[in-house]
């Protein structure tokens, strides 16, 4: 047997003993076995090795140690995965009180802040826009403004209304209930000129119709219509 053949044969022995040779390798291997005594001897050495490995013994701890395996294991489990201890009644009471105080404080401060804000706004007399809706393609827009000064609200409406046509009673600067023009309703904006008549209004930018009901109350209402 040549050196190269011998090396190849030896390399294939473990795979042969594992039964994972390809068919071609297996045929070659069998042929070498038939031809060569050295190959047979080498295979036999591996078989002996396998037998020794099969007989290799394991040393075990003494039987007492084996018997105590499970109790010792649970001991370690208890040490390394402690279950949460129940809290004392004082700790639970403290938790409850602190939680209640925290929630109560939070709610109280929120309510207080809201009331304070409302009072401040009412006292300052600023107009509050309470309802608004954007006009889209001929929708009616109702805007209610409370407060003595409607200017901030009108300024907002100004931006929304672009194609208004009058349908309700119109006002001019001389009509009763019309309380002067605001800067935002001035001639600079044709869409919102309070002095424009219905004949002067030309689409797409029609004037906004304003109506202040004579309620005698301090709070007026601004109504804008769009057909």
């Amino acid at each position, binding site marked *: 047997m040549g050196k190269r053949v011998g090396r190849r044969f030896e390399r294939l022995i*473990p795979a042969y003993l594992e039964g994972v040779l390809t068919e071609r390798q297996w045929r070659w291997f069998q042929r070498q076995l038939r031809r060569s005594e050295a190959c047979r001897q080498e295979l036999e050495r591996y078989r*002996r090795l396998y037998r020794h490995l099969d007989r290799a013994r394991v040393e075990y701890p003494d039987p007492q140690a084996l018997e105590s*395996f499970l109790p010792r294991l649970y001991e370690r489990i208890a040490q390394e995965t402690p279950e949460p201890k129940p809290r004392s009644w004082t700790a639970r009471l403290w938790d409850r009180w602190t939680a209640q105080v925290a929630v109560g404080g939070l709610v109280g401060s929120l309510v207080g802040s809201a009331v304070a804000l409302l009072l401040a706004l009412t006292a300052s007399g600023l107009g509050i826009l309470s309802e608004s809706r954007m006009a889209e393609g001929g929708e009616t827009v109702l805007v209610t403004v409370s407060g003595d000064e409607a200017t901030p609200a009108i300024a907002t409406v100004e931006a929304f209304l672009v194609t208004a046509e009058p349908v309700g009673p119109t006002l001019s600067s001389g009509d009763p209930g019309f309380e002067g023009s605001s800067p935002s309703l001035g001639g600079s904006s044709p869409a919102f000129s309070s002095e424009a008549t219905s004949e002067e209004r030309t689409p797409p930018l029609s004037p906004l119709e304003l109506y202040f009901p004579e309620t005698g109350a301090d709070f007026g209402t601004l109504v804008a219509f769009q057909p």
Partner: protein
Amino acid sequence: MSVKDADQFLVEQFQSGDRGAFDALVQRHYRRIYDYAYYFTHDVEEAYDITQEVFLRAFKALNGFKGDSSFYTWLYKIATNACIDHRRRRRVYRRVALYEDLNVEAGLDRMPDRERLPDEQVLDLEIDEQIKQAVRQLPEKQRQVFILRHFEGLSLQEIADILNRELGTVKAHLFHATRKMRRLLAPYLEEVAVGGHEEG
């Protein structure tokens, strides 16, 4: 019920709160895991400690076990990691206690009681010792595969699953390891050298 099904049943029992199922799983597998740890360390106490560690880790992780692989494959994975961790710790320890460890490896602390044993058993003990020494000399990856195949009797595919390696890689490791073992144990594989103790 097959071994796999029985394990799966016990795992499910444990996951639904039956701690007794874990006892059963330990009883079924601790011997195999001990053997594996022993072949890795060749030390009774270390193997025992590793086995405890393996089941401790298994207990902690068992609720998350989804059954993608068989329970014992999963357990061998834990055992392999535990053995590797143990070896790392031991390396650190060896630097500290090198002198003492060398005595242990040379067998000076634990000589077999030869007077009580017949010749054949003496030879077996000697071969056992040589096998241990040879296994220790294998590179880490080859040793894992070799132990799982030859001492634990797992299939090549099972080993590939446990070690997360390609089947071809596992085969290569095993064949290299086997050839190396053959060279290391050469004096004990010759028929003449064995002197009539051969059974095959």
